[in-house]
């Protein structure tokens, strides 16, 4: 059985890894979709582990260019390998996605809150991901499947734009082959050759098997997708406290000091990125926030 993921106990400023980037080397790079790549990193310092909890993120830096927050999408039971799935959208992320095996980059972290896997035990677990939102949830899926007996029904609902945009295709297939988890995948549009579901991700919530009042949901994806997903989950009997969302903002320091990622009374990098929906609901739905 995989070990329990542990949150770092403290986050003291100046502690190694939080303020000063640590050197990591690209062990492999894998192209997931047209513009999304997965990097597996190992510490340059031999044997160094990087314990993290699913849902947390690291700040990755390309020296001389900049630093970006990227969710950790690897298995928390394998802290020696840092896995990050990155969409090439800006100068830094494009540069990260071009890094070849052996290239060195900087890593600070891990930062932020994690998916409440412990609290979800003995309940049904519904994981709803949209697009690249599957990446921050993958660690939670690894954990739930490694500790399968601790949960009731486990339902993974994943939606993305087209079949070509599906992340972790082979893993989804492997999970779908298990008898102890139900995997629902849908795309917004597809050619006739696609044999799976077509339609928005919220439609699949109706088909999932879970007991609303005894369910915990983890949701990650674009804001509008999360908003509508939460509405559907509420109609299935979940409460605001049992729905967790992962938010994304302009995170820069990772320590809640610079204020760039402030959303109302919270700093996403320090108080999040994973929040119970009840805590961010008012700000999440506010247009000017």
């Amino acid at each position, binding site marked *: 059985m995989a070990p329990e993921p542990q949150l770092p106990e403290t986050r003291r400023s100046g502690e190694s890894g939080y303020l000063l980037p640590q050197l990591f080397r690209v062990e492999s790079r894998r192209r997931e979709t047209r513009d999304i790549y997965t990097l597996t990193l190992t510490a340059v310092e031999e044997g160094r582990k990087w314990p993290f909890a699913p849902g947390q993120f690291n700040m990755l830096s390309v020296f001389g260019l900049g630093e970006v927050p990227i969710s950790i999408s690897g298995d928390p039971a394998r802290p020696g390998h840092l896995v990050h799935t990155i969409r090439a959208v800006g100068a830094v992320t494009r540069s990260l996605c071009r890094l070849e095996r052996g290239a060195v980059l900087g890593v600070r972290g891990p930062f932020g809150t994690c998916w409440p896997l412990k609290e979800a035990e003995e309940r049904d677990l519904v994981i709803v991901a949209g697009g690249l939102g599957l990446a921050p949830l993958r660690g939670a899926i690894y954990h739930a499947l490694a500790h399968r007996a601790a949960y009731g029904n486990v339902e993974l609902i994943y939606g993305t*734009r087209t079949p070509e*945009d599906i992340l972790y295709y082979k893993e989804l297939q492997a999970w779908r082959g298990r008898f102890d988890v139900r995997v629902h995948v849908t795309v917004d549009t597809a050619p006739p050759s696609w*044999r*799976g579901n077509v339609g928005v991700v919220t439609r699949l919530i109706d088909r999932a098997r879970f007991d609303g009042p005894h369910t915990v949901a983890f949701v990650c994806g674009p804001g509008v997708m999360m908003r509508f997903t939460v509405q559907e989950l509420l109609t299935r009997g979940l409460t605001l406290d049992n729905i967790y969302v992962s938010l994304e903002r302009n995170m820069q320091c990772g320590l809640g000091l610079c204020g760039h990622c402030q959303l109302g009374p919270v700093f996403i990098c320090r108080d999040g990125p994973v929040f119970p929906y009840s805590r961010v609901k008012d700000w999440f739905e506010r247009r000017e926030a």
Partner: protein
Amino acid sequence: METVEAVLGAHPFFKGLTSRHLGAVAACGRLVQFKAGEFLCRDSEEALDFFAIISGSVAVEIFTARRGPLATSTVGEGEVLGWLWFDKPYHWHLDARARQFTRAVALEVKALKEACEADHDLGYEVMKRYAHHLAVQFRIARLQLVDMYGS
């Protein structure tokens, strides 16, 4: 033997109908089945039936000149297909193709409308379900229009 009434009674769309109303709806229906690749309806054809899907899966497609047929949704067990039948011009505006062996109840639209006119209580029950179905379809269409995952 499987009857239309029994099948419709177990279908979520008709859940809660009284047995009298269920009987009236069932009188408009017949059991149909489609092989994979077979069309349930084609764009521009007259909309004669409204389908309650019992099993299988149906792709709702739009034909585009540049990309060919594009599936915009799939309809499966416990769902209904065809929400354009209730208003003029009573033509399908989509193609619906079975993606696997699919069974359904085809409800004859003309007969169903007549039954609703003859019994307004039944008409109201059908309309409530129809309105809910439309509301869901509108929510879905809005989300698809937003292109949530557009990068």
